[in-house]
């Protein structure tokens, strides 16, 4: 296990470096000179040489690669520059907005895993054709609804007609119920369909035929034989879904106006606040990368038969 982790870390370094380059060059290569745009937005009258002085001060005139190295060093010290809109350091902005997005994403992931297991197993194993078709159609319907429209529907039902909650939210925990529901219904349907397909694929394998012929009970076949084979692809899919949920939180935070990272990023798009956008991209990339890494570790642990055991060559007779 340990050298697997070390080996994965080794391959992780170039990817992380590549991600940081992507983040940096996206800003550096955007049309329009950042200094000029900043000054113009702040309404400051400026002269050509004032700009030159400022560029010099920000080190924008140095060769691009040198600027990248400086930027990288500052990044590693968690100094990601100032937000143009609020003037506060980007790190501060993140600290205030981060907790909400992370709780939203993790809660939705947990809820959708449970829901998807329900969808997937019933759709795959049910004897009655009607129920199977119903779950199949219902999940395709759920997947096809845009999450923002689902949110508006839920708001319409619970806020407007039933008046259980107020439209603007009340700062209490149950503010999160509808957003989590919105996020997890869609992804639960997708994951449910994947689970159904994987279960049916595994059930067409020869070793399931042997398990049936052995006379094992259906629950044992499902719990041990089928689960053991379908878990790895599901775990990988959970990590990918976590990324999609992080993205989905942007929409949900906007509709339910929850002060999360997503809302901050959306604000940054309107204000062309590049520092926030760059930090947001890199930060979300890191979280997504870590979740994929955890999924890989879990899969490595789940598939002992891939690992070469010492003295395993009893095979060739």
């Amino acid at each position: 296990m340990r050298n697997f982790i070390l080996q994965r870390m080794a391959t992780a370094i170039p990817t992380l470096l590549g991600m940081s380059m992507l983040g940096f060059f996206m800003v550096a290569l955007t049309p329009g000179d950042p200094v000029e745009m900043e000054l113009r937005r702040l309404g400051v009258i400026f002269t050509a040489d004032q700009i030159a002085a400022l560029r010099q001060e920000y080190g924008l005139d140095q060769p691009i690669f040198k600027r990248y190295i400086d930027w990288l060093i500052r990044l590693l010290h968690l100094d990601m520059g100032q937000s143009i809109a609020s003037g506060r350091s980007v790190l501060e902005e993140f600290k205030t907005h981060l907790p909400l997005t992370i709780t939203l994403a993790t809660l939705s992931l947990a809820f959708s895993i449970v829901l998807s297991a329900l969808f997937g197993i019933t759709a795959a194993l049910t004897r009655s054709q009607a129920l199977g078709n119903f779950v199949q159609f219902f999940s395709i319907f759920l997947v096809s609804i845009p999450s923002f429209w689902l949110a508006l529907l839920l708001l319409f039902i619970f806020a407007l007609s039933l008046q259980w909650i107020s439209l603007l939210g009340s700062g209490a925990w149950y503010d999160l119920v509808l957003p989590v529901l919105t996020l997890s219904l869609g992804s639960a349907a997708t994951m449910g369909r994947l689970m159904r397909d994987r279960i049916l694929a595994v059930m067409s394998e020869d070793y399931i035929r042997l398990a049936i012929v052995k006379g094992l009970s259906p629950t044992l076949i499902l719990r041990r034989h089928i689960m053991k084979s379908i878990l790895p692809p599901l775990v990988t899919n959970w990590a990918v879904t976590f990324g999609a949920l992080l993205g989905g939180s942007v929409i949900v935070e906007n509709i339910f106006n929850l002060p999360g990272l997503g809302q901050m990023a959306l604000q940054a798009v309107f204000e062309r606040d590049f520092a926030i956008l760059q930090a947001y991209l890199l930060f979300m990339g890191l979280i997504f990368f870590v979740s994929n890494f955890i999924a890989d570790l879990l899969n490595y642990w789940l598939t002992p038969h891939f690992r070469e055991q010492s003295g395993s060559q009893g095979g060739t007779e």
Partner: protein
Amino acid sequence: MVDTPLFKLNHLTICQQGKDQNPIIDDVSFSLNQGQRLGLIGRSGCGKSVTSHAIMDILRPPLVRKQGQAILQGQDLFTLSAAEKRRIRGQGMFCIFQSPGSALHPALTIKQQMIEIATVIEQDQTTIINAVEYAFDRMQLPIRCLTQYPHHLSGGMKQRVLMAMALLLKPTLLIADEPTTGLDVLTEQDVLKAMEIMLEETQSACLFISHDIRIVKRVCNDLLVMKDGKIVDRCTRDELTYRERAETTREIIDAMKVA
């Protein structure tokens, strides 16, 4: 032997969904007595394996059973409920399939796949482990295989693991569907020797399916020859040399003599 046979298959007919006119298995009937070994021979694609799947009742769409009964010790298997069928499988009927490569679960150790038989034959952990080791010893399988995964084992060893499972289950009827196809000549002998030992010990009736008459002649005393889903010839091992066998049988006998 006037008493009722151990296993009786009546008028089994299997067709593809929607194509009822040319059935895959057309009105096949035969019976097996206690401890009898019946060979089922035929060229590839004549429906031998479909018959074994039908008897075990694990046919997959698009194949569907049109008619037929499979009476094992007086019970028609096709009319049983799912739970009853499950009780019959394993100790009543067991099947060893041809695909040595994919028959065992790739992600479970051989030990796990052997021990889980305890749930079928109701034995506690300690007795099952001894039984497994005894079976492995009888099948000349090294004990260290237990901790390995199927892909570490050769084709011949995997088939002998299936034989060991049969030894534990002691089924009244064992169906061996081309157990030695794809194995080289010497491994084939090991697997057949292991099978002899297993059949001796379990005293189970055996339906041995193969395209290779040389092996069937060695293992079985009665033979059925199948062509395009129909039984075209029935004879005992010694009658095989008579001239007036069915045309397909003669074709297969000549093929055997190519050496």
